[in-house]
């Protein structure tokens, strides 16, 4: 909505130029009549445009300003209350904050990215094809782009491309644990230590059996060769041997007793187990067999605790939380960049090709390197184009709505909120307070006006 009204000032501007200056003196009546007739004809031609502008731009602006002074029902005059309410509401403040982030970050990134890409594509052979590919997202509606990126950013690596990559890269460096969900039923035998390892509370000397029960292991996580642990749990330990089983302390279907190795309960194979001496140092390490049994042999006399190191239980890496409250705004800005980079690239590229070559040639002859040419010649000469891209994007970014609305999931919508979205939410999205919504609209209009004025000035300058 705010985008349309703000174009108002630049159109009526040329009107005064319509009727030519009445050159003749006031006594020259046929001339004066002609001038008047000309003015009338001009007015007649302008009338449709003026009517349209009035009905579609001026009237809505005035109405919105008026509406913003009334309450939700539209019947009670509340003065500036909506405006004070606006700045008291944490949701609106958040929206203002986010819009600021958008305005500061997005146009700058976009202009920079466009400039770099434009300069680089100048040098490559398939520049047109490259530009075409980058420009393609412009052909996609914001709605579709939003849906695409909603999926791209999805947390589940099976669905979200970005997280599939993140998890893939992470896992190729770091093997995931075998039993991420396993845990002791309670803290009677095993205590959870720092970093997620479990250590027995009581210490045992060699010659003892220490059986450790864990629960929460999905049957499908258990290797197929896992065997019942009961037999191994009863084996007696030799003199210098500390042994026992690590088993799933849960009988499927019920009936098992906690803390007891019941007949059907299976051992947990391939689990790392450590013997820890009095100083807390691991002196021996082994892994469990198919029936969950482990043995430490040749331990010197003394008391040992048995530790199940954290690497057994590390939660699988879930990827980056793109759609979480902290990353949501950068994530949406990323999607925005994807759409608009092509636009910036093409515009800046056009400016680049129109640039006088001889200056660059001269610089080259004088011995300037690429970086110097870029900094001292290309950027200054491109400044008008860069300015247009930047200002257009500032205006564009202020009214960003659809991407935020689509990409941000319900629970984090407020964390991603921007002014245009807040305006819609307040007036139509359940709040039904069109008074407050109008006030937000007016605020948005006021914020866009400076950028608009800047743009118009620039147009004027380039026209004259």
């Amino acid at each position, binding site marked *: 909505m705010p985008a349309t009204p703000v174009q108002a000032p630049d159109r009526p501007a040329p009107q005064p130029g319509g009727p030519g200056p009445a050159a003749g003196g006031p006594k020259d009546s046929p001339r004066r009549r002609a001038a008047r007739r000309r003015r009338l004809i001009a007015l007649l031609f302008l009338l449709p445009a003026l009517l349209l502008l009035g009905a579609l731009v001026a009237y809505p602006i005035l109405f919105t300003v008026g509406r913003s002074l009334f309450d*939700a029902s539209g019947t009670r005059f509340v003065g500036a209350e909506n405006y004070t309410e606006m700045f008291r509401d944490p949701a609106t403040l958040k929206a203002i904050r986010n819009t600021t982030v958008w305005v500061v970050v997005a146009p700058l990134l976009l202009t920079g990215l466009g400039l770099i890409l434009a300069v680089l594509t100048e040098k490559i052979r398939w520049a047109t094809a490259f530009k075409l590919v980058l420009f393609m997202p412009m052909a996609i509606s914001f709605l579709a782009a939003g849906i695409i990126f909603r999926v791209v950013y999805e947390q589940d690596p099976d669905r979200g491309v970005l997280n599939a990559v993140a998890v893939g890269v992470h896992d190729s460096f770091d093997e995931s644990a075998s039993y991420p969900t396993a845990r002791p039923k309670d803290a009677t035998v095993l205590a959870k230590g720092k970093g997620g390892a479990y250590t027995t509370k009581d210490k045992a000397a060699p010659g003892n059996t220490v059986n450790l029960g864990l629960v929460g292991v999905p049957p499908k996580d258990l290797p197929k060769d896992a065997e019942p642990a009961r037999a191994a749990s009863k084996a007696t330990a030799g003199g210098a041997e500390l042994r026992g089983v690590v088993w799933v302390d849960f009988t499927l279907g019920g009936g098992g007793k906690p803390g007891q190795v019941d007949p059907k309960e299976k051992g947990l194979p391939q689990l790392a187990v450590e013997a820890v001496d009095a100083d807390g140092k691991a002196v021996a390490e082994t892994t469990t067999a198919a029936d969950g049994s482990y043995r430490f042999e040749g331990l010197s006399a003394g008391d040992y605790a048995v530790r199940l190191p954290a690497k057994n239980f590390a939660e699988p890496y879930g990827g980056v939380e793109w759609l*979480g409250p902290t990353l949501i705004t950068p994530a949406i800005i990323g999607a925005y960049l994807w759409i608009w980079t092509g636009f910036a690239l093409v515009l800046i590229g056009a400016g680049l090709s129109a640039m006088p070559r001889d200056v660059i040639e001269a610089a080259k002859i004088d011995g300037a390197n690429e970086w110097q040419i870029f900094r001292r010649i290309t950027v200054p000469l491109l400044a008008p184009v860069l300015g247009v891209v930047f200002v257009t994007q500032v205006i564009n970014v202020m009214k960003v709505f659809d991407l935020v609305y689509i990409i941000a999931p319900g629970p984090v919508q407020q964390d991603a909120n921007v002014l245009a979205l807040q305006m819609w939410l307040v007036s139509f999205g359940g709040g039904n307070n069109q008074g407050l919504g109008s006030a937000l609209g007016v605020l948005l209009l006021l914020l866009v006006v400076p950028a608009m004025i800047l743009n118009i000035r620039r147009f004027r300058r380039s026209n004259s």
Partner: protein
Amino acid sequence: MSSTRTRRRTATATAAALGLALTATACGGSDDSSGSGSQELKGQTVTVAGVWTGTEQKNFKKVLDAFSEKTGATTKFISTGDNVSTVVGSKIEGGNAPDVVMVPQPGVLKQFAGKGWLQPLSAKVRDTAESNFAPVWQDYGTIGDKYYGLYFKASNKSTVWYSPDALSQAGVQPPKSWDAMLKAGRTVSDSGLPAFSVAGEDGWTLTDWFENIYLSQAGPENYDKLAAHKIAWTDPSVVKALTTLSELFEDKKLVAGGGKGALRTTFPESVEQVFGDDPKAGMVYEGDFVGATISGDLKKKVGEDAKFFPFPAVADGKPPVVGGGDAATVLKSGKHRKAGMKLVEFLATPEAAEIWAGAGGFLSPNKSVKPEAYQDDVTRKTADSLIKAGNAVRFDMSDQAPAAFGGTAGTGEWKLLQDFLRDPSDPKGTARKLEAAAAKAYKD
């Protein structure tokens, strides 16, 4: 409100679709009444507007056909889609008002009555309703002291759905109390399967969790007061209910994926997590329409692959029954409103309800409807718990609240309960924020 409505509606629609598929030949048991009609309304056309589409619309038409047969009136059904008030409003202004409107929410009924669109129902409807319905249904149909809405179709939002496999693997029985449910949940999680799938991405499921706990723990009187915002959300009873809810939310063993995972789960996904091919949880709470998702989208058999138990009682309270429904109203500006009133009179009878009950995807608050009329056991059981709750049934609180508080994604109750799911450590603070949001929404 509308997004809630859409989702639930799609769910029920699919349920009805399946129901129809199952009983393709069972066209209701009303054939015996044919021929006995007096044809007194011959030549009149009753126009009915409602939110139903697809199979629901088809099944409702069967009810209308029975009415035509009885009275000789012709009937016409207009589907309004989700936005009843806008469509009906424009039809009234255009001088083309329907005679009967099936209003989907108490808030909308209030709005209609407030605008003076509705005609109070006749004494005959009131009498039939009095003998066939628990008084609470009339109360929800009464605005001021006038009886405007007859609740024809109901829903039951106090059903906890579980996978029988998951429970039998853990060796637990469907629990009868909140504490037993959490205990059973912990056992299920010990067996290696997280206990509950919570659809935190859809705020409305969280409000339903809260409402069931509150209704059972604080009792129907407090529930009514809170729904009307006559007591504040900072009331100790609210804090207590939130604390009870936090017992579930804060336990990572009970909620699949923990709070963060739950916040990424939508309602259809939560059902799929329990009843899909790769189960990620053992139980899911939501209303009777879960059955529709199970049988429609997941192609699983309700009653075999999926069962439910009534939402258990919290502490010393009674088991809660939170419901909802569509109310038949008569518009003042309808051209054939007298015939429309006759239709509402017909809808109040068990005969009308049994027609749709036979077609499936339907619960009737009418206690004279014969249990045999329902086409399957699960529906019969949900209907039974709705009828048995009698006067203790309460409507969804968030549906009664202003939309800004109880029905908008990203703000109000939805958002605050989502925050609470993320971090359930401060029930008091959440209550304070809820009160602040409610105070703002209820003031106008």
